[in-house]
């Protein structure tokens, strides 16, 4: 690979697979500049599942797409670096690559796989499932057609597709929603990627199918020792699959931590409030749901200071509405982007 791909800056720790630092993605629109992603930093270690949760407009999908350099054409990569460690061990600065260049094309599919909410956006309706998987395999590997087909059937078996030898010659529209999702996962895993980006893969599915897909992803992740960036708005799903969690709000990561830290000791008021606004099975009947005041501001009018302050029950005038908070880092590695994270007055308020 060329010299530009090598980072001149400090390199990542050896266990690190992907690292985003201060990534900003902006979109020029008729009504002004939308800062969809405004300084996002997170990392994924080898073989771990990072859950990214956030409401609509939090920029969670846009960030993930910038890892693959699959943003819309008019997106402006305003700031930040995205570093990725290839299978060969080399570090690659993704944000410096040409989005249509050979490095990116090799990265997509071979190193990083991606699955979406709607499988039909990733599957071509005019080719059989088998053809699509075979093509991906033959694109990245020097294999014969017969070997590629064998690999396709193997992959379909791996994703627990019923009757894989039959399904391999079917078109996507013959399959049910859950089976399409499996086919898309098989396609994404065609070349044993080290990282899988899953963008709301279970949102459109029914709970029983969702449970099947989650089980499948957990098993595959374990078997292939693959890392997953799992994007969702569903806290239940995150709690089920993630090792670590990043909570996003209005284009920023407001809190990161292990899944237990986020769910049992949330430090950011937004995380705390969100967790209390979800009805939980077995304990919520009749109890009033806690809400977060107001709504997510529109992206043209992001509040000054801490962008959550107008909805925050603990916001302090003169601080929260003026100064953008930095990450407060705790001993355990948990981070919360709040002026008062971990301070006593917040603990009092939460009581």
């Amino acid at each position, binding site marked *: 690979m060329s010299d530009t791909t090598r980072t001149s800056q400090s390199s990542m720790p050896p266990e690190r697979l992907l690292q985003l630092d201060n990534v900003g993605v902006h979109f020029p629109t008729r009504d002004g500049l939308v800062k969809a992603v405004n300084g996002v930093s997170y990392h994924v270690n080898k073989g771990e599942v990072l859950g990214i949760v956030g409401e609509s407009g939090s920029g969670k999908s846009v960030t993930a797409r910038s890892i693959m350099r699959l943003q819309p054409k008019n997106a402006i990569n305003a700031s930040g670096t995205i570093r990725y460690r290839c299978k060969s061990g080399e570090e690659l600065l993704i944000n410096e690559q040409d989005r249509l260049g050979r490095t990116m094309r090799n990265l997509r599919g071979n190193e990083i796989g991606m699955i979406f909410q709607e499988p039909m956006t990733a599957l071509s309706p005019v080719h059989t499932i088998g053809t699509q998987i075979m093509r991906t395999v033959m694109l990245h590997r020097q294999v014969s057609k017969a070997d590629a087909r064998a690999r396709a059937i193997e992959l379909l078996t791996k994703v627990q597709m019923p009757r894989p030898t039959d399904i391999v010659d079917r078109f996507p529209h013959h399959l049910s929603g859950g089976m399409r999702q499996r086919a898309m996962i098989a396609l994404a895993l065609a070349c044993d990627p080290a990282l899988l980006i899953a963008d709301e893969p279970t949102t459109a599915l029914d709970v029983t199918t969702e449970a099947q897909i989650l089980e499948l992803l957990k098993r595959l992740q374990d078997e292939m020792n693959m890392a997953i960036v799992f994007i969702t708005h569903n806290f239940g799903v995150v709690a089920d699959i993630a090792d670590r969690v990043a909570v996003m709000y209005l284009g920023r990561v407001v809190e990161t931590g292990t899944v237990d830290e986020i769910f049992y000791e949330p430090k950011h008021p937004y995380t705390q409030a969100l967790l209390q606004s979800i009805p939980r099975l077995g304990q919520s009947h009749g109890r009033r749901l806690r809400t977060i005041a107001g709504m997510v501001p529109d992206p043209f009018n992001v509040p000054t200071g801490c962008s959550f302050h107008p909805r925050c029950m603990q916001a302090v005038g003169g601080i929260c509405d003026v100064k953008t908070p930095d990450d407060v880092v705790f001993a355990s590695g948990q981070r919360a982007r709040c002026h008062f994270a971990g301070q006593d007055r917040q603990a009092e308020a*939460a009581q």
Partner: protein
Amino acid sequence: MTDIQTLPSETLLVPPLAPKEEFKADASSTAKPWTLIWWRFRKHKLAVVSLAFMVILGLLAVFADFMSPYAPTTINRVNTFAPPTVVRVVHEGTLQRPFIYAMKRVRDPETARVVYQEDRTKVLPIDFFVRGEPYALLGLVDTDLHFFGIGDRRQQINLLGTDSLGRDIFTRLLYGARVTLSAGLIGVAFSFVLGLALGAISGYYGGWLDAMIQRLMEFIRSIPTIPLWMGLAAALPIAWDPLFVYVLITIILSLIGWTHLARVVRGRFLSLKSEDYVLAARLAGASEYRIVTRHMLPAMTSYIIAAVTLAIPEMILGETALSFLGLGLRPPVVSWGVLLQDAQNLRTISLAPWLLAPGVAVILVVLAFNFIGDGLRDAADPYGQ
């Protein structure tokens, strides 16, 4: 776990939705649908320019007799195949009001062909509001006032040259615009009525009626248009009044052209029928009449206007093609298609390329309508993203 928001019971009825949000008087939140459509249409620069062009052309056509210096049928035997006159402002190095040089008709000694030469000594200033041939403005006011012209009776100003009989092409182009544009508009009006009625029946009632109309439309669309036109037009007796032929031609065009519109209307009806807000109105007890007039038609008008705009050029091209082939309008009616008949001959074109001016006009008008239609189509749904 304690619930922070244990609010007093009387405040519970107004939950804290956006308590800190300010009331923004944003113009777009109270803007009427048509205002939004106009705002979006304005962003389509080409469409706006085309709209202005068509408005100007329309006015020129309506006031053709005033705007043109001559009458369309006036023959001038000593001014045949005259090239377009050049309007100048500089005479012998000095700036003047717009003028033309007089033309001298000379014969080329070698080819014995008539050629026109500018007589650089004779300055003929262009006058405005001059007296000329009499006409009735808008068919009402008898007058002989023309917008521009030149004082010299023996000389002519031919902005686009003259044809084989010495008739002014600029004048004939304006008169032709009347016929060609109105043929397009009337034809579209006919097909609009047909398309709206059949499309609405098809989309609203569905079932076998829909299936029948669909098959009929497919059948009509599958017939090659030129032979069909030719067949229908050939059936028109040659002795009929040209004006009557003109109306029949537009009807023939619209009999073929309505299918596209019907398809748009049907599609909108089908998609609107499944909209939740239509169901909501029905559940509120709204009558079918109210649902169609208050909920479905307003959501459709902008789409229909866009489709109609895109159908006009088809009509204009149809009229031009028919008349060009000699199957549509015939002289003495002046339309762009009729004018183009003069340009059928390669020799005349090489000698007098300005005879193609009506063709250029057709291209410009068709493009303009297409741009306007595109702009309208993009703006038709100001609520979608």
